[in-house]
């Protein structure tokens, strides 16, 4: 146990049991972004999967929205320590997007409009673990929350769920994205509290 803070009692709730270590519950939806919010018109939006050299698949908004979608209800956890339970999204599973791509890559770099990047193991995007989400709480995803569409990888800290996502690059080897180059953890599992690069 750490140093006791004289006079601090804190507030405990039944929901704490569902929270990863060091997180607290919020009911609104704070925003964390490194720069200005890009406003991406749907007629210019596209999503590209490439291997660093060649484009493997590409969708414009129309063809993307013709793909089968799923409704996803998940808890989300931000490294700035808020968690939000039972959020409801609609999106296209990454499994659907990767369906006809053969690859021996082990990692991906997600790229966003506005030049944000974040890296993930490819296995973390497969098997119903990740989506490209375009609706939140029954409404089109607002630009400050990543609209028109963002990556959603709820089992990792939310910075991995790249807002304004425009594609993923398949990679043989891991390399750090934006926050990962600035002191944040390379993987970012909230249940192991992998916040900063020194953790674990």
């Amino acid at each position: 146990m750490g140093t006791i803070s004289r006079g601090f009692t804190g507030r405990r709730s039944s929901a704490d049991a569902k929270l990863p270590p060091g997180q607290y519950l919020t009911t609104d939806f704070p925003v964390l972004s490194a720069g200005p919010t890009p406003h991406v018109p749907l007629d210019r939006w596209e999503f590209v999967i490439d291997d660093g050299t060649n484009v493997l698949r590409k969708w414009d908004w129309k063809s993307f929205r013709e793909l089968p979608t799923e409704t996803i209800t998940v808890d989300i956890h931000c490294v700035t320590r808020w968690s939000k339970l039972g959020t409801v999204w609609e999106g296209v599973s990454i499994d659907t997007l990767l369906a006809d791509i053969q690859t021996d890559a082990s990692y991906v770099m997600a790229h966003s409009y506005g030049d944000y990047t974040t890296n993930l193991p490819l296995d973390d995007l497969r098997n119903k673990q990740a989506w490209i989400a375009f609706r939140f709480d029954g409404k089109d995803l607002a630009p400050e929350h990543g609209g028109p569409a963002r990556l959603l990888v709820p089992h990792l800290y939310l910075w991995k769920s790249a807002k304004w996502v425009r594609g993923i690059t398949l990679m043989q080897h891991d390399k750090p994205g934006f926050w990962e180059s600035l002191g944040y953890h390379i993987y970012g599992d909230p249940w192991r509290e992998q916040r900063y690069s020194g953790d674990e």
Partner: protein
Amino acid sequence: MWRVGTVVALHDETTTARTITLEVPDWPGHIAGQHVDVRVTAPDGYSAVRSYSIASAPNSERRVEITVERLPNGEVSPYLTQEVAVGDRLELRGPVGGWFVWRAEQTEPIQLIAGGAGIVPLMAMIRSRASAGSIAPFRLLYSVREPRAVFYRDELHTLCDQDRSLMVTYAYTRVAPMDSPRPPGRINAPLIADATWPSNLAPTCYVCGPTSFVESATDLLGASGIGRDKIRTERFGSTGERK
């Protein structure tokens, strides 16, 4: 790793915000704009952690200042702004963050835009500039509800008096003082044109405040011709205690 800091001074900035000065013997130093995680622990072991922007410039005294705004339904901020006393100990982790930072080696014009408690990390930049003897031209546009909600007023006044290359413009949103050149209102394009560096000087911009404020300020900067790669932001939501 968690370090123990001892509260050595308390100062009320406003009726709802308090600056806490901590002495941290093994503090590794920080860069202006970084934040620190603060952990408070109840006698039964329950603990809560929040991130706060560091308000102080890096210094040799191993002192770290944070300014905490009390949130009506907050769990930690009421404790930090009302209960904590000189001599109490808090646990700290950090400093954290390598993006929303200003380093004394930067010589380009700097535009700071604060909304409310978003002034805190920007004040650390202004203080770092002063303590490093930097002559980088700084402008601060500080949007605040009313005169009595201003943090660090006297210090900002003194710093501006001493240094012509630091300029501060207040933008009051609800109540403006009688000698204010503008009626109260939200920041808008004419104010941005008037009070911020023109885009041809390629200023680096740091914008910090509530989400809606940061969205509108960065849109206005973009419309004024500032490249998006020159704009760095830090946002907090209504329950995000990251200040």
